[in-house]
């Protein structure tokens, strides 16, 4: 076997957002290991091994740009990531010049768009699933008011404002509340929220650790309402806030239906092949989906050295996962370009201390 294709992955691998970058990396590495164990990828008339090149995006705009250039120097043209809005901002224009196709994560408002034809999106942002999820939550928990909390940087405010708008559109009166990233103790903010008297507190854009502290402290303060996390990592947050015994009313959202047998199978494969537990951060699954699809496109394009060609094949193919089955592309209405996965997502809830069955929500393709 003399043939090798390269798959890049970029995200915050160090610092506060490391869990995102590292679980994305884990997903891509799993997919590579899986494919390699099964003989490799068919490229032209050869079977090729997959090699993963991981780069730390350093959580900054400059880091995102530098990562793209590093990939160029390593001749990597198909990339998973970046994850953070900042990294995406720096990465996009440079990768366009470098002819690199990428599957970004993140809730940035302009994560993909007609100006950047090589950029794809592997998760969906709030406008895609938000109305559906908010409606479900509103009915189940009889919500009238809510507050969305997040750090005051782009990662927090972008998604936070989108979410608040969706809640308001659904008829739940919702405000936003920003705090400084790096806050270690949420005692005062908990008091502030107590004074707001809202039915639900949504911690979607908070890092899991910080979300855990806030919920713990709200519970200590005697907050009677519902918690929500309309984004990845609900399980982790519950664990960090003291578990189900403590958090009696909670609804959250997963970027894949995690309770689905398909994802259970994925988890099992991962742990067998990687000899490590699957990361807590559910982004690992979406990374796998993106890597799987990307490899298919590379195979069809017959090269891993031309982002443009790979992108053409990506647009042509129907996303089809060996775990979650077929999905489609969406995004035209929201971003002006149909380059976002439409894999189903999951809605979960705990009500009065009882865990409800996960609801699989199908996201329509466009």
């Amino acid at each position, binding site marked *: 076997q003399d043939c090798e294709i390269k798959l890049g992955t970029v995200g915050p691998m160090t610092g506060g957002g490391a869990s995102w970058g590292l679980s994305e990396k884990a997903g891509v590495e799993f997919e590579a290991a899986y494919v390699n164990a099964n003989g490799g990828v068919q490229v032209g008339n050869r079977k090729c091994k997959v090699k993963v090149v991981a780069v730390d995006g350093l959580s900054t705009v*400059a880091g995102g740009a530098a990562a793209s250039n590093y990939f160029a120097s390593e001749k990597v043209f198909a990339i998973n990531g970046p994850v953070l809005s900042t990294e995406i901002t720096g990465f996009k224009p440079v990768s366009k010049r470098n002819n690199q196709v990428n599957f970004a994560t993140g809730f940035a408002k302009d994560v993909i768009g007609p100006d950047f034809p090589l950029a794809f999106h592997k998760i969906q942002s709030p406008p895609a699933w938000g109305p559906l999820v908010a409606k479900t939550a509103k009915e189940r928990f009889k919500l009238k008011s809510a507050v969305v909390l997040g750090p005051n940087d782009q990662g927090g405010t972008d998604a936070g404002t989108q979410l608040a708008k969706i809640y308001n559109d659904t008829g739940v009166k919702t405000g936003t509340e920003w705090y400084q990233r790096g806050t270690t103790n949420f005692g005062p903010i908990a008091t502030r929220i107590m004074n707001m008297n809202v039915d639900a507190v949504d911690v979607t854009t908070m890092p899991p650790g910080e979300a855990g502290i806030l919920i713990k402290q709200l519970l200590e303060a005697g907050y009677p309402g519902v918690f929500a996390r309309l984004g990845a990592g609900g399980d982790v947050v519950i664990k960090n806030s003291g578990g189900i015994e403590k958090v009696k009313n909670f609804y959250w959202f997963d970027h894949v239906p995690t309770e689905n047998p398909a994802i259970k199978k994925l988890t099992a494969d991962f742990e067998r092949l990687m000899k490590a537990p699957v990361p807590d951060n559910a982004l690992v699954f979406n990374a796998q989906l993106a890597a799987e699809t990307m490899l298919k496109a590379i195979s069809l394009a017959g090269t891993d050295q031309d982002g443009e060609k790979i992108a053409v094949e990506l647009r042509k193919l129907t996303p089809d996962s060996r775990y979650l089955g077929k999905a489609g592309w969406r995004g035209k209405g929201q971003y002006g370009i149909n380059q976002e996965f439409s894999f189903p997502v999951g809605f979960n809830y705990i009500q009065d201390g009882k865990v409800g069955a996960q609801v699989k929500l199908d996201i329509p393709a466009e």
Partner: protein
Amino acid sequence: MTSNRRRDFKLDLCGLALLLPLLVVPLVTNEPFYNSLAYQAAIGVSAAMAVYVMLRMGLLSFTVPAFMAIGGYAAAMFAKAGMSELLLLMGVAFIVPALFAIPLGALVLRLKGIYFIFVTFLFNEILQLVLFETPTLTGGSDGIPAVPAATLFGMSLGSPSMLVVVTVSVCIVATICTLAVTQRFRAEFTSIEENETLAESLGVAVWKYRTIGFVASAGVSGLAGFALVNMLATAHPSSFASWSVNNYIAYAFVGGRGTMLGMVVGSYLLIFMTNIFSSYANLSAGLYGVLLLVVMMGAPNGIVGLFLKFSERRKTRIQPTITPVVKEGRA
């Protein structure tokens, strides 16, 4: 350690000369990685120069990211408003932070040592928060996207290689400014660093020179910020995060804090290594830490300092073994 005026000047010029190859990089290669290294180095050197100006007075200023932000944002606003002439933008990027530095300097320049470090660090944090709290002016947490590239006499300098050329040129200007200020006021600056009370007793208006240095440092930071914004076409708060100052200070220290050559060498080394390390993903920070530790322990005065020590040792064979107690001040 005798009067090194001439030697230091030569080393400063060496530093300046070492920037010229960067200018050539975009002209000889299209390789994105090398161009990327070149512009990162140029921005890093500019920021390190801003640190250097203050170091000449014995002050370690943590304001660099804040003034970079002020310069970068100011230039971005001008460019967005259609005034994208390079020389104008450079002027704006220098002058606006310099103006901010005057009142701020009046407040913080009374402080010294670690106090100064901490308070200037606070200023970064404050500025970040102000950026977040003023979305109409600065775009808040999203920053100012799609900043048009600078133009020269109406010609766009937006091509990838021209962007690098512009960045490096800005860096050279920043370096020349630094050289001019530190040479012109060398006697005052070093006297203030060494023995402020004596300098004052001889008639040096210490606050005045501190302010000059601070203003120059702010202006140079602003140029660095402009270079960064122009290169990335975005003025974004995360580009000017408080902790990024640690990088610039590391450039200065690892290279050698005594000379401008040190700034250049340190920036080159650390930026190159950061790019290499970042491909080690989760290990990158740790590797960077190891590098800092190794260099600072092996060469507490930085690489240039180490080099000078060796060359001096060759000249004078006998070295004092210990710094004795005698002759400190007879207070």
